[in-house]
């Protein structure tokens, strides 16, 4: 008996490698203490999504994905990070408040959560012609770790970045299982994201104006 796992092929290997890098940037966000670093990591992660879209477009002959990659590059790598870092400069806060957990425990929790994502995804037997299933599991893991990020961090910027990167995870999943989605819908999704980013920005500013900080630790008045 030979339990060896056979290699997935060069294309799948590269695609999976990019997806793994996406997950690693998500973990890096979990660790990053500087808010600026977090925004940069988000930009890097979005860049990876765009590159992956180009790879899929080239090998699977889906020319629409080039357009999508370009738009997502413009929006998620340039516009969104620019908007957020402009806001950061105004508020002159650099360091995120400490999270609810220590970094090492955060990573452990996130590893467990990501493992759950992998396990769950492998049970669904979803396969797609565009990308290997591992990428799907990785996408789900990115989404779950983004949730961890939103839960354990105690400042508005990290939480917002958590949501944006959650969307990156969904983009990864959609590259795997819905690569052929019509361009008009993809563009509408991106536009929607832009609107959400603007609203997040406005609310972050409202929050900062009211409380003179980006921390959310004191948001405990409303309960019951």
């Amino acid at each position: 008996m030979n339990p060896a796992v056979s290699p997935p092929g060069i294309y799948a290997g590269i695609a999976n490698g990019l997806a793994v890098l996406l997950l690693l940037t998500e973990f890096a966000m979990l660790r990053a203490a500087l808010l600026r670093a977090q925004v940069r990591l988000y930009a890097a992660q979005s860049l990876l999504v765009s590159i992956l879209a180009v790879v899929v477009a080239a090998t699977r002959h889906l020319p629409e994905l080039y357009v999508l990659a370009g738009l997502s590059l413009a929006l998620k790598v340039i516009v969104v990070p620019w908007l957020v870092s402009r806001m950061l400069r105004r508020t002159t806060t650099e360091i995120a408040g400490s999270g609810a957990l220590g970094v090492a425990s955060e990573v452990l929790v996130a590893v467990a959560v990501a493992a759950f994502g992998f396990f769950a995804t492998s049970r669904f037997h979803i396969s797609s012609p565009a990308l290997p299933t591992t990428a799907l599991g990785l996408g789900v893991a990115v989404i779950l770790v983004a949730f961890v990020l939103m839960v354990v961090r105690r400042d508005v910027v990290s939480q917002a970045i958590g949501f944006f990167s959650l969307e990156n995870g969904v983009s990864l999943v959609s590259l795997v299982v819905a690569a052929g989605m019509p361009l008009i819908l993809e563009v509408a999704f991106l536009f929607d994201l832009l609107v959400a980013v603007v609203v997040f920005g406005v609310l972050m500013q409202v929050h900062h104006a009211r409380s003179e900080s980006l921390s959310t630790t004191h948001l405990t008045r409303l309960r019951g």
Partner: protein
Amino acid sequence: MPVVLILLTTLPLAAAVVSLLGRTRASQALTLVMGLACLGLAIALVPAAAHDSPHTGFLRADAISVVFLLGTAFLYAAAAVYSIGYLRAEEHREDFARYARRFYLGVNLFAWSMLAAPLVNGLALLWIAVEITTVVSALLVALDNTDNAAEAAWKYVLLASAGLGIGLLATIVMYYAGSTVAGQSYDLAFAPLLAAGTRLPHTAVQLAFVLAVLGFGTKVGLFPVHTWLPDAHSEAPTPVSAMLSGSLLAVSFYAVLRYYQIASGTLGASFPRTVLLVFGVLSLLLAALYLLEQRDLKRLLAYSSVEHMGILAIGIGLGAPLATAGVLLHVIVHAAAKGNAFFGAGVLVRKYRTKDVATIRSGLDTLPWTAPLFLLAILALAAMPPFGLFRSEFQIVAGGLAAAHNAVTVVLVVLVTVAFLGLSVATTRMLFTPGPRVVARGEPSAWMVAPMLAGLAVLVLLGIHPPADLADLFARGVSDLAGGGT
């Protein structure tokens, strides 16, 4: 008929554009006109949708969507009227012009997105519309610019967006499921997905449905992802609270219903029904318990919304045609009743300058019109005859017993009774307990009473004798949901 669909999705936008210009009187008048026009158009759609599904381009209306359209359009019109009185008390603000501009811009965009959601044809567009409702309403929640409002808005936008992230995942998984039948590239329209029926891959549809219940359920206010709801409802300006509670939750439930429709076409009804029953019962339980010990008037009504969303989920989960018809009726009457309750609560809060249930006393002496109307609205919410909610909940309970879901039905009845207890104790304290006269007798504004009278009329009408067209509409909706085509 297609022109009605186009008008319904453009009129609020026109009002929003005019609001942007910043003439408060003009935006008030136009919002009122557009609100009434949308209500009229929605009613005009009823006969057509009862027999046919008119569609044009990306827009499509069938029986189910028109039901939700009616609730939203009614609240849009009612809130437009109410806002005139509501804003009068804000006129002393230094930045009143700016406040009013933002308020009307937000309200119109909010109404637009909620009217568009049931009218778009396809799960992807539906997700987009629901996401727009989130971002617009989050800004409206923050409008009052207090510490509490900022906190509520942030929690709301974060939680709802995260939930909708799951909703997007559901959309994509459903896309995958559909692509095995419809080909790599298609637009997620309802009809082909429903027609594909059992040919869709089961696991994927199952996954998409659960994700959709969880994701859109965040916005419906289902347990355990309801936590944003009381905050947002209590901190938003009152007309917005009414729209949030009466129609936003329902519109999100509409999204769940669409996934339910597709899932039950593919998997058979038992799995999706079980999921909805579990979420519904838990939400109802939570809401009933919180209602017993609630000291904040607007949060009280917010938990009552959680309760009613739980009832909707249970009603669909029971699966009997009678119960399903009850659910569709419930959507409309809940919009009217909850609108009335919030409008009344808004007046009480205005008058007493507090949301604390323990501080508001002898309301019946102080507010000769609002207090009785508020009382009636609470009684309606508690499903007292002769109001519409009595009819709808009766149908749900009867349907549950007919479908031999005895245990769930009993739990439903018990919990609704507990909720009634919580609501009525708080209400009687506020209205009947005598207290020191702290405020002068008199209504703040007739504009704020008028929509409640209209709501009461709707509740009584639908409770005693629903129009025949509406009955046809429900019958059609029930057969659609039971898998009888589109």
